[in-house]
């Protein structure tokens, strides 16, 4: 995974609360292989009308916000389904950081596993940032080392779980880390089997 240090990019405001993962990517697009790219499905039903034409009032369709890599939105972003495809849609579209006052728990872990930073700001700072973007600021800078966001003349701090910060800064993948514990895991499994013999699923009577 690519390390995330800092990012200076076009920021797009999405002034909505509770943007759930069904909005981020409607279920009907999830049959595709990831190799085909999920970017065109991001927020599909908020971007395109029934005929497939772009809706002009959708922030992502604003010509000035093309190439956005930062999304600024309201509370409880990514609530709902565990579909990692919601993160794929953001990442494949180009988004590397979402700034909001709170996130759905499963969404945040999925985001971090894909190198996407879920940056938490206070409700007040979130509104301030949305305001400078509405008033014409186009870009923002997000510094994960300094936990700071700049846009126009606004400077704010954000938080992210320290474990996730280290992971993002280094571009670490959990699997590599876990594999260094292989023998500890095997040992745990062995001891546990004696401690909790009832844990092992018993054979299915009608198993073929």
């Amino acid at each position, binding site marked *: 995974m690519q390390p995330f240090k800092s990012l200076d990019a076009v920021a797009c405001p999405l002034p909505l*609360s*509770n943007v*759930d993962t*069904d*909005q981020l990517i*409607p*279920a*009907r697009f*999830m*049959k595709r*292989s*990831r190799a085909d790219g999920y970017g065109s499905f991001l927020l599909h*039903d908020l971007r395109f009308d*029934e005929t497939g034409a772009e809706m002009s009032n959708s922030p992502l369709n604003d010509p000035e916000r093309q190439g956005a890599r930062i999304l600024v939105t*309201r*509370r*409880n972003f990514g*609530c*709902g*389904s*565990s*579909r*990692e*495809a919601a*993160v794929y849609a953001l990442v494949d579209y180009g988004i590397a950081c979402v700034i909001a006052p*709170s*996130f*759905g*728990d*499963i969404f945040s*872990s*999925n985001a971090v*596993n*894909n190198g996407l930073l879920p940056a938490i700001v206070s409700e007040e700072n979130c509104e301030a940032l949305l305001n400078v973007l509405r008033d014409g600021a186009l870009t923002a800078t997000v510094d994960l080392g300094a936990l700071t966001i700049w846009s126009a003349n606004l400077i704010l701090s954000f938080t992210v*779980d*320290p*474990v996730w910060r*280290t992971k993002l800064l280094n571009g670490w993948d*959990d*699997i590599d*880390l*876990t*594999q260094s*514990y292989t023998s*500890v*895991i095997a040992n*745990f*499994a062995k001891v*546990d089997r004696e401690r*909790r*013999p*009832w*844990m*092992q*699923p*018993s054979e*299915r*009577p*009608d*198993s073929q």
Partner: protein
Amino acid sequence: MYTPNRKHVTLFDKVFDAHVIVEREDGQCLLWIDRHFLHEGSFHAFNKLKERSAEVARPDLTFGIEDHYVPTRTRDLGRIDPAIRGMIEQLRGNSQRHGVRRFGLDDPAQGIVHVVGPEQGLTLPGLTIVCGDSHTATHGAFGAIAFGIGASEVAHVLMTQTLWQKKPKRMRISVDGELTPGVSAKDLALSTIARIGTGGAVGHAIEYAGSTIRSLSMEGRLTLCNLSIEAGGRFGMIAPDETTIEYLRNRPFAPKGEAFERGAQYWLALASDADAVFDHEITLNAAEIAPVVTWGITPEDASPITARVPDPAQIPDPARAAQVRDALDYMDIKPGQSLTDIRIDRVFIGSCTNSRIEDIRAAAAILVGRKAKVPGLVSPGSMLVKKQAEDEGLDRIILEAGLEWVDPGCSMCVGMNGDLVPPGERCASTTNRNFRGRQGPGSRTHLMSPAMVAAAAITGHLTDMRLLMREPVPARD
């Protein structure tokens, strides 16, 4: 690791601590995973395994279930959309390649993952259970730590049978007193979400406690824990008790004989200590809970059926007022209108929230001898529920009322199999999410209990089921 002598320990901590393999200084714990459920959506994770030429570490603890994309009106894959068929075939191929036991369409125990796990005794107290589905907390009804994970985590569990987790905070929701007639676990869950909000339990593991919870059946407990994620809680659990143990005895995959008795002893000791400390406590009075419906586009937009639709002009918080305005606009509902004046176009009874035998019975008790004014689908949660319902004659009641009785699957909960609510239509549904377009592009969803859906089907508008209540349907032999 769990040491039995510690004091003030919660149910969550007891189960969590018993699964910690390694704890890092920063609080990250490597957790052992006891059960891993897969479904058709797990193909992303299998593709990650392929990239690394990795194997499934513990196929004996991994179970594949065909539910998200399965057809409900035929079991013949030759007759369905090839793209949907491809999803099912991918799970079949991956399960076979890795030696994972699969509950397929041809299996007499097939059904929705969160119905099948408990029914088969795969779900047990004191386990860690994961699945790439946010409603996995359902299994917490047995006193397990069960949670939804994303595809990267699914791949991690497949490869290592472990997962890195940090301990969440603990929240206890205590409900005491007796639920009034007609009020169900679904009403309890929706009332709780309306109270604490969709983000109310973010970062927390919920434990449901109190006399009302104790007196719920396993079916009711499953419905309650199922909806934890709609309050933002990745985990929801209930301490195991005699109800739990009786439910599990003789289930196909549950331990047998001596092993079962040993398990039962361990399980009963998992309850939170009397002096356990929670980061957050909520209390509710069961007697105050009425049948609930949602009127908006998040599950917190819920009110008792006797109420009126809120008026954004009367809501002091401008952010909430804007949300409500937006929701009513999408739902095409007028502020201040009576909830019972809302007309519906169709109904759906099913999903991992409300498709168990009790749910089908509750709906049938309202439908018996009556005719539905709108079309609708009833999809039992598993082939076993379907068979039992048919043995009890409930399918006849449903068919005679004019509703469709179909095979099990996620169906109209998420519409992945093509069971969709047409654009602009309004559906009274026993599912868990009323998000914009959840049941199909432009669809409008009202969440409620099975009895409330049945009542809405009979009258064609949202209805207080208590007005249609009769004696329970006697079982036919």
